[in-house]
């Protein structure tokens, strides 16, 4: 359905945040979706639909297409837009438990924070960003650990938390491609068991090692297999499943 892009005003974002802090009772108030004083009408139009998404990756693919016509320079920081989209898809981002209450995440998961360091936790912006930046290599970052997940868009994995907290890592094609090879099942795209750990060979350690390697190597754009070859022995437990081949693994 073609309709104009909307953006929550500053007052709208504050009100949306207040509604979330109050426990997000009932359905999303219509003012956050269509009241022109709160959900400001933009000049652009988008072909938006309200279908249910079976995965965060599918959601990210959809958003990448949906927003392709918008100004790419402004899109990243467009707090009003990302917050409005969160309101639009709120029932999928925050499911209701059987008793009717919602399992809410921090406010910045829905209202894009003024603090850049919270961006990677936004439940709409992040699927868009990682799919746009990494394509199929982003699949493991967005995959649910459950085989059948009733609320896939509401998840924020520990793996994404460990790698996403530094945008320089999350924005690196080589690092994410390498991490995808190391930590995911190439058949299913799901994270391997144990990837939520924080010890040796963990994604957190990969992040720290990458910072050290960056003094000497171009960790951002070098070939992922080259990067994997530089990793210390603590990552050897993951290497058994990696098929080293001559193909470049890039988005």
């Amino acid at each position, binding site marked *: 359905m073609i309709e104009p892009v909307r953006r929550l005003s500053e007052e709208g974002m504050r009100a949306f945040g207040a509604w979330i802090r109050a426990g997000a009772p009932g359905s999303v108030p219509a003012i956050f979706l269509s009241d022109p004083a709160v959900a400001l009408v933009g000049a652009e139009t988008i072909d938006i639909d309200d279908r249910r998404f079976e995965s965060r990756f599918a959601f990210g693919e959809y958003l990448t297409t949906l927003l392709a016509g918008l100004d*790419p*320079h*402004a*899109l*990243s*920081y467009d707090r009003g837009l990302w917050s409005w989209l969160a309101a639009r898809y709120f029932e999928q981002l925050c499911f209701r438990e059987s008793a009717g209450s919602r399992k809410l995440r921090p406010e910045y998961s829905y209202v894009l924070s*003024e*603090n*850049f*360091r919270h961006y990677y936790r936004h439940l709409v912006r992040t699927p868009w960003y990682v799919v746009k930046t990494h394509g199929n290599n982003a699949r493991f970052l967005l995959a649910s650990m459950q085989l059948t997940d009733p609320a896939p868009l509401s998840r924020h994995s520990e793996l994404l938390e460990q790698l996403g*907290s*530094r*945008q*320089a*890592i999350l*924005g690196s094609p*080589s690092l994410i491609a390498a991490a995808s090879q190391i930590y995911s099942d190439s058949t299913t795209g799901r994270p391997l068991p144990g990837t939520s750990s924080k010890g040796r060979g963990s994604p957190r350690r990969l992040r720290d090692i990458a910072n*050290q390697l960056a*003094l*000497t*190597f*171009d*960790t*951002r*754009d*070098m*070939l992922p297999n*080259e*990067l994997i070859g530089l990793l210390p022995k603590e990552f050897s437990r993951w290497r058994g499943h990696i098929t080293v081949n001559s193909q470049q693994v890039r988005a």
Partner: protein
Amino acid sequence: MASLQKRLNSTGRHRIKRERVTVLLHEGVEGQIPWAEAKINLGNMRLPPDATVAFEAYYRSSSMRFSCGTVAAPIVPDRMYLTDIDQGGAIRFRILVIAPDGSGKILAAADGLRPSDEEDGSDRQPLLVLRERNLGSELWRIDIDDRSGPILLVTNSIPGFAARLKSSPLLQGLVFPHALRTILQKLPPPDDENDDNWSDSWRTFLGELGVSTEPEDDEPDTVHSWVEEAAKRFCEAKMFSVRARESGEILEISHD
């Protein structure tokens, strides 16, 4: 920390000197995405002509890269929009020259580059650069980059605040002594190998205040005393209380 990182780099990486790079940062009005332009001169550095050149902008853990061709055929984009950079602080820049053999090895680099300040008409670099930023609810803070040193960030949400800070002894007295304390507590040790060690100019400044250029030892009490002595001498030199009183700036205090 900066000198420790340097000593860890034993791969023969060339240092690209600052004078080879000019960066301009265009910040525009609030809400506009900042963009950068750069001029890079890699001539006569004996680098492989097909080595790739990359320009990066970064602040804290956020960074963006722009491809700039090769050493022999540099192509620097006219406008590099900084769409994925944390806008909450002083953006820095780096240049990387990367081996063409696919190894990812960095052959040459310049790091911690500050944008040229278009307002600076003189050759003299200010000891503490001031920049306006969106700081949320904060009014000011000191941002210290390991390589390029401190910057005083002030909020851009209060019109005229930065200009007022430059001229008001009252505001200066409220901000500058504490900024000095923050900087001195993070002053890196002298590094004879590094021409660009930012602490050198601050040690010169301490000397001008009549304060020793470093504490006698690393004991917390000693460091604290040294920092407080420097702050005291600084305030005496700047006569903040006298000047603030004489300026006629008034703090209204309600008596309830």
